[in-house]
């Protein structure tokens, strides 16, 4: 079954049309949404976990219209990692456990951190005092803590310096190879090819490939 199906989706943000009659299929595995800034790729990603809704058209997740699903449950099944790290106040472990705690679950913080490339010594550190690269790994760890069916990654390396970017990219590539489904928004064709097995290319709100 396809992970996501978009049919004739049009959407706007801030009064501007950002997606224009987009139809696309995202299969299980690692898919990159590739395009220059302003192409609508981040706007498309936001439709997948219903941070926003399209003006028209339908978005299906594993065959079901996302509007028919419980939205909080959808966001746990399709966990989004934001473009800029936005840690909650508290320790790294607090951040990792926050999402699962909202639905009465617990998470193995150390295991999640390890998958995101951070060792367990980070768990009790103040999330606000980490570097941006480390914080972005915490964002990845706390998304993984939800045990999602798919990760939605919104330009996860665009705020990072070169070294941090390469490190996070390697971690994502490892997760993809280990079978973690992901939708990666990026403007970097090299990155798309290094991490993803499929590429959906957007230009000015339309799918071009």
């Amino acid at each position, binding site marked *: 079954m396809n992970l996501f199906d978009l049919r004739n989706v049009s959407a706007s943000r801030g009064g501007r049309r950002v997606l224009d009659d987009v139809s696309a299929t995202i299969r299980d595995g690692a898919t990159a949404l590739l395009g220059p800034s302003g192409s609508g790729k981040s706007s498309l990603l936001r439709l997948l976990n219903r*941070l926003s809704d399209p003006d028209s058209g339908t978005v299906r997740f594993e065959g079901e219209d996302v509007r028919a699903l419980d939205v909080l*449950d959808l966001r746990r099944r399709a966990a989004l990692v934001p473009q800029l790290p936005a840690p909650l106040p508290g320790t790294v472990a607090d951040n990792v456990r926050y999402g699962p705690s909202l639905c009465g679950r617990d998470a193995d913080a150390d295991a999640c951190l390890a998958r995101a490339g951070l060792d367990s010594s980070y768990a009790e550190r103040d999330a606000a005092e980490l570097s941006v690269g480390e914080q972005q790994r915490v964002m990845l760890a706390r998304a993984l803590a939800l045990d999602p069916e798919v990760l939605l990654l919104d330009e996860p390396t665009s705020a990072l310096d070169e070294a941090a970017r390469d490190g996070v990219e390697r971690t994502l590539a490892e997760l993809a190879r280990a079978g973690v489904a992901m939708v990666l928004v990026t403007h970097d064709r090299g990155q798309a090819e290094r991490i993803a097995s499929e590429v959906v290319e957007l230009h000015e709100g339309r799918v071009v490939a």
Partner: protein
Amino acid sequence: MSSIDVTLTEVAATLVLVAIAVAVSRWRRAELEADLGIAVLRSFVQLTAVGYVIQAIFDSDSLLLVVALLAGMVAFGSFTARGRAKGVPDALGPVVLALTVAAVTTLGLVLALGVFDAKPRYLVPVGGMVIGNAMTAAAVALNRLADEIGGSRAAIEATLSLGATSRQAAAGAVTRSLRSGMIALVDSTKTTGIVFFPGTMVGMLVAGAEPVDAVRLQLILLWALLGSVSLSALIATGLGYRGFFTPAHQLRDAGPR
């Protein structure tokens, strides 16, 4: 309690001090002359009018008229507070509820506790103070809420993305806004008597009351206002945040930029 007579001549004499304000404004090019003129005129007309209204209500001794007057104050205060909290979508409902609950609870409690008798002479001025302070608290809190949410859209959406409800995602912003709605009165209550004499006490002392009575009434009012301001800010922010979200726990589009 003794009463004093204030003549219009005495009132007119204090215009000399307004003239100083006008002179300062002209000299330093603060361009407030027109505003000062409007302020003097409006304060004269509004207070004179409300004076007649209050006199009529005192003469009638009708509690129904008191309720009508206080309801009018809530309505006017709600529109004023909404006007000041422009960044909050659909703010009117939360503000009306905030002011109503603050007024009803505060006046109801001071009556039930036997602090005041259910007479227009007490209910009108105390109700006016309660509603006025509740209005300011709601406006300040909602203004802050708009800034808080506007300034942390990305963080709020990041929290929503973890399966948080809009209430959970906005909790930090709501708490900080509640605080800012309450802090001004808390601070002025701390410094009262040292840095400034509150209006009620000044009025009673000038009118010839014993200082100890003036102080006790002022304490009653300050403490009652703390309660009403906290209720107002709590309800305004606790309901006001919803205007920023859709029922599907989405942060509403900020509109054309």
